[in-house]
């Protein structure tokens, strides 16, 4: 299972490295969205870091939706799914591999957007660094949930528009706990209770994905 996961993750990351969709399309979109969020708040409020964590996670959410769609689009070309099915790969391994690749892409986006938040929204650098581990775990949980929900919508009619409807409610607890832990890191508050929610969500989504991904891929 681990070997298959590794192979699938490398395959997805290689495709991403060659197509450079993340670099030339998704990250510029994220940067633009961050700037627009600052403009929406106005110059007086944008400089106050209290809004920073919420805006950071909101923009990350948009980026995550784009990346989940992208991750599923890789297999959307005719015959690809059938070819993967005939290989007889362990679905749990495929799920873990796709989750790992998506998580790495989200981590890269997260670090870039965090730098953007420090620069544009004046989020304190020390607090941002303290929040980094919780951000990485939150994005990992989002990757696991995103892979699962992406598989649910893939190939269906209007998959791109259906994905946010199904995914956003699932992301809500992750966003809340992620934002709270980020705010706690900025204000030197207690982090552990938000960590618990994010870690439980990560484990739950990984467990459900390992168990049920095969059911979604059955033909």
């Amino acid at each position, binding site marked *: 299972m681990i070997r298959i996961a590794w192979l699938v993750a490398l395959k997805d990351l290689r495709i991403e490295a060659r197509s450079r969709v993340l670099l030339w399309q998704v990250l510029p979109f994220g940067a633009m969205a961050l700037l627009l969020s600052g403009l929406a708040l106005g110059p007086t409020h944008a400089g106050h870091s209290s809004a920073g964590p919420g805006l950071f996670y909101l923009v990350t959410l948009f980026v995550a939706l784009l990346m989940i769609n992208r991750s599923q689009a890789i297999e959307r070309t005719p015959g690809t799914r059938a070819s993967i099915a005939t290989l007889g790969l362990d679905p749990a391994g495929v799920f873990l591999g796709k989750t790992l690749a998506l998580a790495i892409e989200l981590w890269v986006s997260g670090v870039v957007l965090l730098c953007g938040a420090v620069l544009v929204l004046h989020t304190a650098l020390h607090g941002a660094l303290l929040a980094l581990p919780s951000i990485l775990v939150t994005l990992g949980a989002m990757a696991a949930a995103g892979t*699962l*929900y992406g598989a*649910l*919508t893939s190939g*269906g*009619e*209007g*998959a791109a528009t*259906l994905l946010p*409807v*199904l995914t*956003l*409610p*699932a992301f*809500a*607890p992750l966003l809340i706990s992620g934002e709270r832990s980020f705010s706690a890191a900025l204000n030197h508050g207690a982090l552990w209770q938000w960590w618990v929610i994010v870690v439980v969500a990560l484990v*739950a989504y990984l467990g*459900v994905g390992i168990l*049920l991904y095969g*059911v*979604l891929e*059955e033909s």
Partner: protein
Amino acid sequence: MMKQLSQRLLGPVTLVLLALTFWLGMWVTPPDKVQGDLVRLVYVHPAIAWVALYVSFGTATIASALYLWKRTRSMVMDRVAHCAMEVSVVFIILTLITGSIWGRPTWGVWWAWDARLTSTAILGVLAVGYLALRRANDDPTLRARRSAVFAILSAINVPIIHFSVLWWKTLHQGATVFTANRTLLIHGIMAWTLLISFVAFTLLFFWLLRARYRLEESRDRARSAALATSLDMRRREGAI
């Protein structure tokens, strides 16, 4: 014989119990010492929420799990899950509306960013998402499988809603009927009216579910008949 009789009686019994709840709630039970007549919503809102969160969503989740389990996999389970989820959407909307009607005079606002309200609204979006997911897939097997997985994933929200009043100390009140030590908080005619309302709305759910199931079954039968007719016509064209 007994099955037919219970099916025939389900509708009338539900209507009688709903009328009884209305009569007891509006005229027989006394107003509350603190809330006055506003307390009468307690005979509607908790019962509707009970059906929305536990009975209908629970039925949809159990039917979905039974569909995914190979031994019990059948389109009957898929239809039950679909119909229960549709009824659940109606009851979730009613829960939010009746809650808002109570919230406006009590809290001063129609909507508050309360943990229970927000998590219930999220459940409503999930239930609508389930129906949207079903519409997005034409293949019946794929549709059944995907929606079953989604229903199970969405059910994680139900315990969050249930315990939200304990985990987060926000506006929504805690347990209404029992205390943490299982002591009854409501007595006499008020308790009886509340009990009847729970039974009435639960029966209403099963009545609606049965009606919706029969409609879905007829629709599937009509689809199969239409397909068989078109195949037959193509065969005849080929024979000519």
